[in-house]
């Protein structure tokens, strides 16, 4: 498989099966843990419970409680222990139940895992995956709903993965587990039940290769994780009024495939960057600056950013739904940028 785009694989008649994102993640673990006995999972309720979201259900039956380890509610403790295990020959996957809990483990991730290889002059390595979540609109309020991918993306030494489809999730998780660097792998909670095609045969997807989720010529929508489906829905609505949008999914914020984004904007001359993290100082700001730096003379309109509103995520559905970009708000922004008012 020389391409990492699902449409291209389908056109090449690669045998496919339809599964959920949850199943894709589960299958990636199953395949990798069978391949490499040094991989283990540690986190809260990961064994028999298979996490509260049931994504890991059944892994403990095959791999036992030594490799699917139920930890106490001690995120800093087991995240740090993951770092120590990774430095001494294991390949841990640390399960952080909610992305909001990154606040508890940023020392292990940002001060330890991210820096050990550099600080030791390249002598130590930390092959670890921190698996966690993002995404609002589950009525889970301010401490279970944030999309904090900007935090790890800011720290040199970390790689950050934001899958948006079952195909991407499976291929990228396998790559994350095999990577010798610390990787933060963030799953959108609302995407687990999303169905999609994945190749029947084993595959991986390299980091730093953006995926063109929809081809178009009039405007580029760069979207991550949960925002990819929002961008695709907006693109359908824009098509109805004659605007042909291209949707680019970077898939990893670091390494970032700048080239694919820049080439798209050079072609379309307009861009909106979408990410569910807070808008200020966020992923959208970084990608917008990449576009402004390298495609400035091709732009016919300012680069626009759309992220979560800069407020703690509220509980009430009437309030929470205002805080994230929707197909309608993206459609309106696209229409404005293309001067189709």
């Amino acid at each position, binding site marked *: 498989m020389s391409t990492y785009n699902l449409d291209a694989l389908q056109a090449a008649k690669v045998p496919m099966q339809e599964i959920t994102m949850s199943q894709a993640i589960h299958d990636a673990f199953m395949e990798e843990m069978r391949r490499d006995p040094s991989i283990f999972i540690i986190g809260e309720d990961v064994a028999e419970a298979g996490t509260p979201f049931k994504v890991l259900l059944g892994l403990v039956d095959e791999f036992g409680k030594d490799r699917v380890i139920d930890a106490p509610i001690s995120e800093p*403790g087991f995240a740090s*222990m993951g770092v120590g*295990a990774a430095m001494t020959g294991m390949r841990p996957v640390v399960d952080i139940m909610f992305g909001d809990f990154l606040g508890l483990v940023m020392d292990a991730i940002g001060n330890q895992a991210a820096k050990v290889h550099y*600080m030791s002059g*390249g*002598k130590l390595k930390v092959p670890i995956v921190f698996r966690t979540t993002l995404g609002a609109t589950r009525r889970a309020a301010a401490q279970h709903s944030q999309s904090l991918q900007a935090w790890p993306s800011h720290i040199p030494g970390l790689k950050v993965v934001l899958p948006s489809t079952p195909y991407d999730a499976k291929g990228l998780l396998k790559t994350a587990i095999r990577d010798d660097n610390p990787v933060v792998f963030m799953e959108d909670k609302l995407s687990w039940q999303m169905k999609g095609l994945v190749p029947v045969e084993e595959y991986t997807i390299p980091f730093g290769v953006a995926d063109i989720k929809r081809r178009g010529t009039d405007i580029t929508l760069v979207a991550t994780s949960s925002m990819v489906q929002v961008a695709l829905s907006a693109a359908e609505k824009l098509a109805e009024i004659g605007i042909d949008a291209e949707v680019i999914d970077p898939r990893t914020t670091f390494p970032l495939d700048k080239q694919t984004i820049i080439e798209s904007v050079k072609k379309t001359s307009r861009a909106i960057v979408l990410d569910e993290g807070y808008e200020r100082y966020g992923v959208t700001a970084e990608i917008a600056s990449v576009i402004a730096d390298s495609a400035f003379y091709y732009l016919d309109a300012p680069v626009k950013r759309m992220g979560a509103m800069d407020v703690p995520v509220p509980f009430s559905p009437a309030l929470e739904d205002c805080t994230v970009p929707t197909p309608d708000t993206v459609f309106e922004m696209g229409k404005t940028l293309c001067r189709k008012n």
Partner: protein
Amino acid sequence: MKKDIKKTPEMESMATDLLDIEQYLHMYEQMLKIRYFEETVNELYKTAKMPGLAHLYSGEEAIAVGVCEALRNDDYITSTHRGHGHCLAKGAAVDRMFAELLGKEAGYCRGKGGSMHIADPETGNLGANAIVGAGSGIATGAALSIKLRHTDQVAVAFFGEGAMGQGLVYEAMNMAALWKLPVIYVCEKNQYVEYTYHEEVMAGGLSARPAAFGIPVEEIDGQDIRQVYETTQQAVARARQGEGPSFIACDTYRYYGHHVGDINRGYYRSKEEEERWKAERDPIQNARKWLIGEMETPSSLLDDIEQKVSDEIRLGVEFAVNCPYPHPSEVTENVYI
């Protein structure tokens, strides 16, 4: 970690104790090495030859040396911001240590880590750490790795009593006790948490804390190399046999300030207190007295060791001062593999 020594006829006659003597002479040499190393670091700081700061281990030598003497090369340690002693005791070479402190290419971390981050996987040193208590999590993780890999290695976490204020230490101890992990927590109670007397920031008793997790605690005199060594041997045996973690609380004293720049210490401790510890409880002087007085070691042998260590330190500094800085192009290397 034994080395060949010249044996006198008197020593040959003490056949049963010979092994012990050899080992204790090696420990004496290691303690001296740390003492001379730290004194030299202080000089390098005062003469502005060393960039940044350093946290000196002088006064606490018996702990690093006594513990590491009971370990194998493939056992792991995690160290602290006050880490030079641990690194040397675990087997690091003086010249490459100095080179790292001066930010030179030949340093253990190619000048990227400096005083607070020396790591040496070849001697099982998983790194000094500038986040207080962080090494406890890493060492406990190494112990989990040991258990999962089914080896009989042991991991040791060194930390000061300041780390007892960090929640991570308790989370790690809880899991170590639950899963019977081969980890030894070595708490160096040097009386001060940075610039604050420990009792001002610690409620209840220190030893009650690991005991609450069912972890056996030994409270020992950290200035007595024999106590440290023998206590660690027991903890190591326990860990290798799969019986789980231990906690060793060592009473000790930091001769210098929190770091080399902490010179005027009168507002938090007295000169009299400092002098009393140095006069009465110096681990190196007391070891020397014991070696001569009770083990009948000729003082000339100890003098030879002092000369040898002194030469090693002098040559180490010369090496470090004369070797090159890393090329600026190295700044972006080793961020990722």
